[in-house]
């Protein structure tokens, strides 16, 4: 300090600016900053820095970048300034430039969690996932944070490496067991891996902390729905519907709840599914579900329409073709029905129900030889898959037994 009086003068009002800023009184803070800037003719670091922060809070990222750059030129070796410059660059979508600035801070020999974390975010946007994973792991080495875990897990999910994602989230839950967002995400990963019970445990845990989160409710509701407990699922969805009345997924699930009820409520199901389709016309699954409902109601023309719409949107789902084939068979269009079965088998040749339905359709149209052929394949696949499964579908068993009898009688 060569000029003690001078420095004291510059930082004289910093305490006041800081206290205004931290108490959220931006108006007073900006006024004080203006005064200081005039008094020091713009050569004071902290007020400029503070002004940049306020500008960013108000959504003026570009302006904030200018202020931070000004602060940096006043004091080029202050890591705080550099960090904020990089942050503003990141918020403006200039990720490469932000990474460069972060690297500069590391060159200055400074290391903290935030730098690594933000650098990871930049790499995520730049789709350089390996680098990003490395950054987040380093961030966690310095100091563990929920945000880093969540980002890391997200990248693993993007790479479809669910095992690694699962491990990350489990670590995160160990680290902060109260965070409902992590619990929900962990539940969703379990759901994706098909471990419904574990998923449900975590989702339930998450609901205990945040009972109104629509995303969690939707996921938990779908598991309850899978267990055929439609009324409970509907209760859950009712809570979510208040918060997200425009969620297509929610309406879809509600519709399928009505459809799954015993006896099914077709009108309510169709109404809900149509609402869902209105909200998200590009979701092939809703069209597919609508097709199923109409098929069950024996409205084959409508069912055909929805299945074909679903295929238009997602041509790679084998079950849609199978149901389309059934619909076409009911509409007495045998040739096209066969073509649809073939297409379904082409996509997934190890689906037993497709073979069974194909065999039934062929049988009904007096194609005994081909029917027998498909039925044999069905029995083979069914026997193979039946070993691992806990209990085969009763309806499939009944239908296959009936067809076996019928085929025998034909001989």
């Amino acid at each position: 300090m060569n000029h003690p009086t001078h420095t004291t003068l510059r930082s004289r009002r910093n305490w006041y600016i800081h206290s205004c800023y931290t108490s959220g009184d931006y108006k007073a803070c900006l006024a004080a900053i203006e005064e200081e800037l005039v008094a020091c003719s713009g050569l004071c670091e902290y007020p400029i820095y503070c002004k940049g922060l306020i500008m960013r809070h108000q959504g003026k990222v570009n302006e904030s970048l200018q202020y931070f750059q000004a602060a940096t030129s006043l004091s080029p070796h202050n890591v705080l300034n550099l960090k904020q410059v990089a942050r503003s660059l990141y918020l403006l979508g200039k990720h490469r430039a932000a990474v460069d600035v972060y690297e500069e801070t590391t060159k200055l020999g400074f290391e903290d969690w935030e730098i690594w974390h933000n650098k990871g975010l930049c790499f995520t946007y730049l789709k350089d996932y390996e680098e990003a994973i490395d950054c987040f792991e380093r961030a966690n080495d310095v100091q563990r944070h929920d945000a880093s875990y969540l980002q890391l897990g997200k990248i693993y999910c993007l790479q479809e490496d669910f095992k690694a994602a699962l491990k990350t989230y489990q670590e995160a839950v160990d680290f902060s067991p109260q965070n409902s967002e992590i619990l929900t995400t962990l539940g969703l990963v379990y759901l994706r891996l098909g471990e419904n019970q574990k998923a449900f445990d975590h989702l339930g845990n998450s609901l205990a902390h945040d009972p109104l989160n629509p995303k969690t409710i939707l996921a938990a509701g779908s598991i309850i729905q899978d267990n055929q407990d439609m009324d409970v699922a509907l209760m859950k969805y009712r809570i979510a519907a208040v918060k997200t009345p425009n969620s297509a997924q929610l309406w879809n699930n509600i519709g399928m709840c009505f459809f799954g009820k015993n006896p099914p409520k077709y009108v309510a199901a169709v109404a809900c599914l149509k609402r869902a389709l209105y909200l998200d016309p590009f979701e092939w699954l809703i069209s597919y579900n609508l097709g199923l409902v109409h098929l069950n109601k024996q409205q084959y023309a409508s069912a055909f329409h929805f299945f074909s719409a679903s295929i238009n949107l997602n041509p790679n789902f084998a079950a849609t073709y199978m149901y389309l084939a059934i619909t076409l068979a009911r509409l007495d269009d045998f040739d096209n029905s066969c073509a649809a079965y073939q297409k379904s088998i082409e996509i997934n040749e190890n689906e037993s129900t497709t073979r069974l339905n194909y065999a039934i359709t062929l049988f009904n149209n007096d194609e005994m030889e081909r029917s027998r052929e498909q039925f044999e394949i069905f029995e083979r696949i069914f026997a193979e898959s039946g070993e691992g499964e806990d209990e085969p579908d009763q309806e499939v068993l009944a239908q296959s037994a009936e067809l076996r009898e019928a085929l025998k009688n034909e001989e």
Partner: protein
Amino acid sequence: MPSQIDPTWLALSRLRRRRFTSCISVCTSILSTSPYDKAVWSLKSQALSLEAYTDETEMEEEGVGEILLDDNAVATLPRPGTSLSAPRVNTSSMGIRPLSSSGRPSTGFSRPGSSSIRPMSGMTVDAAFKGPKPGTARPMTTLGREVRLGTASMENSGGKFIEVDKLDLRKYAGRPDLAVVLVDYLLQVEVNPRKALELCSEATQKANYKSWFWKRKLGQCYYKLGLYRDAEKQLRSSLKDTPMIMTYFDLTKVYLKLDIPNTALSLLLSAGEQFPMEPRILLGIARIYDMLGDIENSSAAYKKVLQIDASSVEAISCLASNSFYTDNPEISLRYYRRLLQMGLSSTELWSNLGLSCFHSSQFDMALSCFSKALQLSNETNEGDVWYNIGLTGVSIGDLALAYQAFKVAVSIDKNCAEAYANLGVLDLRKNDWESAQAMFEQAKSLAPFLFEPLYNLALLQWKRGNLEGAYENVKESLIIYPDHEESLALKKELMGSLMGLR
């Protein structure tokens, strides 16, 4: 002219048969020989005013000047549901039902006034001059309708019939039979409410302030001069003397101008008790409910209208669109079919029929309805039909058809903001982010009352990493639709990023 018939009688008969032009010519020829024949003079002025008659029970389109410089509203910051500029926003329907340019849920019937933007809704001069349908129509100027009608009728009569400035109004006020005719002439043909007001005040004095007719006319004159509080006083007093249906309509108009729709509503409801079989009162009630965004009550009122007048086009079409947007396309199909049976055939009707057919699973009918709609269309509504075809394309999953149809819609109607927004969404699906952003920007500039393009734009910018733009847009989206859950979530996320919490 047949010579054996008395010409005065002939004129009278023609007036009764509403053949105004020939009646006027007979009167003119009689007056050229005997200019002081009071009976003929009265006949001619009746014929002239009937010819120029405008139905003033309807709501009227507001001129640009009135929209921008309106200072009649009672409250400057009205509570929701008490003013037409702050309709009660039924947020649950916001994502479900399209909005008109005034920010209200669109109704099934386009009527004067309903599509204009209310004053004080934060509107710019540009928006006022664009009018309800940008690019298709000149904005209304103050007294727009009346001024044009006035000049047209003057040409017909071939020069001035009555020299208004030279009239001794006091003399006429003493003769009620002539004064009644004259006041109509002054209001309808001359469009001179100031002179009419003089006559009315003389006449009401002569009638010892007892005549409901003169009070009503006084109220009308005050209304035209923009003195709404005076108009209200006269009309109220007229109603106290003799309740008349027409007076109720006049008073309703005054209240709507003052932007106190709830008072207008209670007035019409009490009128409805006095005249329970009058469909126009019920229609008025339904319209006000519509303007306030209260769809349930307006539907109930429209249904009552239909019980009295089974062929009210306005009621049927509004009920049809209501049931369409409440997931009952089968019922709306029946209403639209009824309109068709009544002999209506327009692009809009066929296009609505097509949509109703499509959504009630009558696929074979839907496409033929749309092609019929296209046959009947002109350049002002062809774009809308293509837009609907595009929506159908989206519903059947034929996105190529949808894209083409939206493109056609945009090429015909450059102001079809919804088509731009949907093109943006389709572009997003193709991962063409640049084009999608341009489309959303276009939709945003054309229709600042839609929240969907704003939200989509914000989401897109957020995904691309431009948080500043995203923040701006999501803020705007929330101004239009404060309860939009997705926008709120996005804003929270953005705030988190900007504050540096994650």
